[in-house]
């Protein structure tokens, strides 16, 4: 386009434009996304509605704070979430906030921004978090490296077929763990010995317990709860090997009896095998969050209507229910740490946690005891109250537990991910003696403590 005399800028017009331009910075223009950018890698929830509600909450916060937030949902299938975390830690770039599964906070502790201020704010409002969260998210100096979240966090107590346990093992699980705040006499009798007798009775009736002896987390968590109930730590909190103790021997002697009543292919179980065993009507009891029940509700409604979730049995050292938490952490390389902390604090407000918990039919377990009274666990059905006892409530007299604790986390992560405890049970099942198993474990553990 050529300038002609008619569209040439006059001196007067130029002065007007200049004056307007000078005045511009004085006018506050509230444009979208004025407070920067933030990217978050959330765990891709098993329940599709879990992602929808999360996106909604993030969008609401982003709009309110004028932050451009990008939310990615990364699946744990094929451990893609762990691979993403490892890659971002190496590359020192990626998302600002990452959702860390169980051991990943300690695996990357030197690359995470402390979040003591967020935790101070949240614990001040909602009370303390449980012991497992402290163990997994605090460093040696006592600083919080990530915030325990409810999203994806689960308990893995027993989920059993009501009719099968009643008919074959004489245990009325609904009476033992009713859908009301009550510690019954039957609960007191729900011990690992009672568990063994029930496993034997159900196995003889052709409905064995679907307990895996593989190396994936369901197998590890169940074995961890068993060892903990006998006080059988493989490594103590100071990193000393304690595998040759009487308590470990006791746990293994019990395991030697239990494995006889598990299926021969229990060693090849992965985290989906026990779900399938329950849903297909082949198992009387599994140790799992209510995801198996949720799938059964869709695919095998009769099985779902006959399923009841409750707490772990009691052993000489107490009642320990497997607890697998997720955390939200902020990378040190994040350019927008303040906004990241604000978003995490916002998402952990009770009303947001409850909305997410409702959306996933109670699958998510909040880290704060004060949040364990949501209505969703009373209302979910069929049968009504099936997951009432899924969260660990104060009257359950149970302790959340992560397998391999209280060993120092850098050792515990290896015990957990190598599946040392279920492998010990698998060796018993294959006919090895307790002494042989202890000798093998001792050799393995020495390698972990290098």
């Amino acid at each position, binding site marked *: 386009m050529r300038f002609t005399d008619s569209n040439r800028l006059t001196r007067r017009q130029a002065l007007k434009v200049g004056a307007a331009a000078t005045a511009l910075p004085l006018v506050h223009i509230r444009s979208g996304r004025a407070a920067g950018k933030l990217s978050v890698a959330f765990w891709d929830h098993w329940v599709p509605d879990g992602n929808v509600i999360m996106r909604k909450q993030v969008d609401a916060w982003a709009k309110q704070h004028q932050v451009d937030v990008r939310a990615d949902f990364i699946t744990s299938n094929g*451990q893609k979430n*762990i*691979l993403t975390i*490892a890659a971002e830690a*190496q590359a020192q770039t990626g998302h600002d906030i990452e959702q860390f599964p169980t*051991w*990943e906070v*300690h*695996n*990357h502790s*030197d690359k995470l921004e402390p979040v003591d201020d967020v935790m101070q704010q949240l614990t001040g409002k909602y009370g303390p978090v449980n012991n497992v969260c402290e163990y997994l998210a605090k460093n040696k100096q006592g600083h919080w490296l990530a915030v325990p979240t409810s999203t994806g966090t689960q308990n893995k107590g027993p989920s059993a077929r009501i009719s099968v346990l009643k008919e074959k093992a004489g245990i009325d699980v609904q009476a033992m763990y009713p859908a009301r705040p009550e510690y019954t006499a039957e609960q007191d009798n729900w011990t690992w010995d009672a568990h063994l007798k029930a496993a034997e009775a159900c196995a003889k009736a052709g409905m064995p317990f679907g307990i895996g*002896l*593989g*190396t*994936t987390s369901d197998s590890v968590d169940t074995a961890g709860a068993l060892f903990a109930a006998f006080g059988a730590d493989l490594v103590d909190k100071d990193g000393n090997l304690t595998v040759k103790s009487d308590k470990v021997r006791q746990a293994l002697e019990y395991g030697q009896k239990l494995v006889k009543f598990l*299926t*021969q*292919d*229990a*060693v*090849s*179980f*992965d985290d989906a*095998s026990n779900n*399938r*065993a329950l849903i*297909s009507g*082949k198992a009387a009891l599994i140790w799992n969050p209510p995801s198996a029940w949720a799938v059964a509700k869709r695919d095998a409604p009769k099985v779902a209507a006959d399923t009841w979730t409750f707490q772990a049995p009691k052993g000489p050292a107490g009642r320990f229910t497997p607890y697998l938490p997720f955390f939200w952490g902020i990378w040190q390389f994040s350019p927008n740490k303040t906004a990241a902390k604000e978003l995490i604090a916002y998402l952990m407000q009770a009303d947001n946690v409850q909305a997410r918990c409702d959306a996933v039919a109670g699958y998510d377990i909040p880290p704060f005891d004060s949040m364990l009274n949501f209505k969703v666990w009373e209302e979910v059905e069929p049968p009504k109250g099936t997951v009432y006892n899924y969260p660990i409530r104060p009257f359950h007299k149970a302790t959340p537990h992560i397998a391999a604790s209280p060993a120092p986390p*850098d050792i515990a*992560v*290896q015990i957990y*991910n*190598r*599946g040392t405890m279920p*492998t010990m049970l*698998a*060796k018993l099942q*294959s006919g090895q003696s307790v002494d042989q198993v202890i000798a*093998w474990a001792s*050799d*393995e553990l020495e*390698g972990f403590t*290098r």
Partner: protein
Amino acid sequence: MADGSSVPVGAISSAGATTQRRSTLKRFSQRRSTIGFLLCLPLILLVAGFVIYPAFYAIYLSMLNKHMTKFIGLSNFTFLLKRHTFQLVIFQSCLFAVTSVVFKALIGFVMAHLMHNIPGKNQRIWRGLLLVPWVIPLALSTLTWWWMFDPSYSALNWLLNKIGIASVPWLGVGWIARFCTIAVNVWYGTPFFMIMYLAALKSVPEQLYEAAAIDGAGAVQKLLFVTLPMMRNIIAITVLFSLIVTFADFDIVRILTSGGPQDMTHVFATYAFQVGIQSGDIPLGAADSLFMFPILAVAAFFVLRGVTRRSKEIAA
């Protein structure tokens, strides 16, 4: 210019033209090599970025301590060699790779011969069908196998039960699980051997067989003294290539057994993933994965030396 030092004008112009032509040619050749280099540059950069750099980075990582803060030399390697589990991994990796490659080579050889004798159009159909296992993405086909071996819904056990045989814990007992991982690898890799051997068979001149027949050679003698010598280089290269790929295999073991039961199917790659990524010890995982390198380097040296020697013999 009566002293004889004079040079005819035509000669000067001719020499000048030659020099000029030479320098132009030189420039041209230089330009060709420059163009060639530039054309190869993307590939060189890809190889440098995705092969050479990661390889050296892995070597660097393998010499760091767990938190990657201190150089510890070869300590990770010596530590691994002392571990009973890792000794098991070495044994299993070798068992998995060698057994798989031997079976793939044998079955592929037989299938190539069978295929070679199918006439005309039918051969193309069979060739296409038999290539299917090799064409399907390995992760997908292994998942299908996993469903067949699955503890709860095993199709194989269903069939066995139908004929009155008890269920087999396919992935639950060490040696059976090892057999399963090797069987899936053989199923997947045999078509590659078949197609390579078939190509080699087709390149054997028919006259050699005719000459052998005139000399009174039977089928076995033709196989031993004509076919095999003519295929030796292809067999060697195919075995080497397959050995490298099989040693580095991850998908089959990861999907079928994750290294279980009781670590009895772990190979270098799956163990490296478990130690490096899952347990947060990346240097140890890197050291583990580098153990493949010397084994494969030795194999490659001997195989390629044999190929070169035979090529020279043929040329002579």
